[in-house]
């Protein structure tokens, strides 16, 4: 009896469920096509500016020297900066904003060390691989 029922409704049920999943998929796709909001555009621009700021910071000669003295190739770190998320980049850029204009080497070293810490954390999380001595947790 039960087998009969399953045989009877099995095919239409499968078809119905397959159709259901198809509509779910279509739903998500149509949600993607639409106006791109001003908020998104503004956030993208702010992120770009922050990224440029951080990259420019690492391009500075005195910063390069500090990095080299710490045994890290500046080019390598700049490459890793590219792999940081927008939120992390904004965090570093905010930190850089705190630097007074024409900051002494001491403050620059402080900022570089801060970025070290950020990169260290992302290394531990396995997002980046700047420091060879860090074993990622996953």
């Amino acid at each position, binding site marked *: 009896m039960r087998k009969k029922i399953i045989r009877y409704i099995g095919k239409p049920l499968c078809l119905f469920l397959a159709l259901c999943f198809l509509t779910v998929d279509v739903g998500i796709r149509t949600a993607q*096509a639409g106006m*791109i909001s*001003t908020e998104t555009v503004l956030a993208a621009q702010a992120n770009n500016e922050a990224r440029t700021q951080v990259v420019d910071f690492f391009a500075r000669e005195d910063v390069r020297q500090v990095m080299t003295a710490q045994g890290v190739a500046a080019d390598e770190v700049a490459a890793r900066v590219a792999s940081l998320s927008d939120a992390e980049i904004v965090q570093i850029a905010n930190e850089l904003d705190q630097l007074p204009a024409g900051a002494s080497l001491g403050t620059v070293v402080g900022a570089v060390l801060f970025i070290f810490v950020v990169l260290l954390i992302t290394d531990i999380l396995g997002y980046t691989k700047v420091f060879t001595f860090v074993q990622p947790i996953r």
Partner: protein
Amino acid sequence: MLINQLQSAGGRWLACAFFGIAILIIISGCSTYQYQSALYPEPQRVYLAEVPFFAQEEYQCGPAALAMLLAWNGEEESLAQLGEQVYSPGLQGSLQPSIVAAARRRGYVAYPLHGWSELVAELKGGQPVMILQNLGLSWYPRWHYAVVIGYDQAVTTVMLHSGIYPEMQMPMGVFERTWRRGDYWGLVVVPPTVLPASATENAYLTAVVGLERAQQFSAATTAYLSAAKAWPNSFVAWMGAGNSSYNDGDIDTAIRSFRQAAALQPDNGVPLNNLALVLAQVGRHPEALAVIDQAINRGGKWQGMFRQTRQKIVAEAELAQ
């Protein structure tokens, strides 16, 4: 004997007084004020005499301060109605975001500012500034909103409409300390046609995005166009003008603004995506398809979305036929 005792007692008082004064001098010498460097090159005195005053009811300094800024812009609003939208009874006070939101709901740009130089710039530009003070101590806060209507370097005072006191004169040092404990937070409320004197491009656009979020599309369009006038190369300002005017039903302005944005960033397809959707909306499908193809050619991280937009327009064009 008696005289001797009195004399020695007097001496003790004198020593105490001397010691006390010395401590006061040391303490006052220790405190540094941000306003000194900010104010020296500015005019000696600014005073906006015509800012209307509303006396607050208990705990209602937020609504009262906002009412004054709105009234300055010619918007008469009952305190009771503002209080409903701004005041949180559980907190016995008003939070900054709810004040900002209440101004936006009336179609005004609420522009937050920070610190002395921006405060002075706004006063010079003729705008009263709402500020947040902590009249108590950091560990025993007494939060208070007041409206700064001027200052006078000669007698080192700040003029405030505060609580139940119109044109209260507060010594600059006291103002500085209480405002510092409020993290130097200030707010100007301006109509969308007016740019705050201290406005910077990104901060102003962020404020206008809030106006757009509050569904005040007509006001947001005007504000974005004001921004585009001040910063003609502002990509975000033109994008915002396009998006808000589209939501407001002003198709011509939308098309014109997206075209401007597209011209400003020739390798960015985002304005073309939105332009194509607007064109499709008014039935200009062939044009829309040409524009979205251009966007897909420009590429970038939104390319997947551009393709979805194209599919949508193709489907709509088929439906229309």
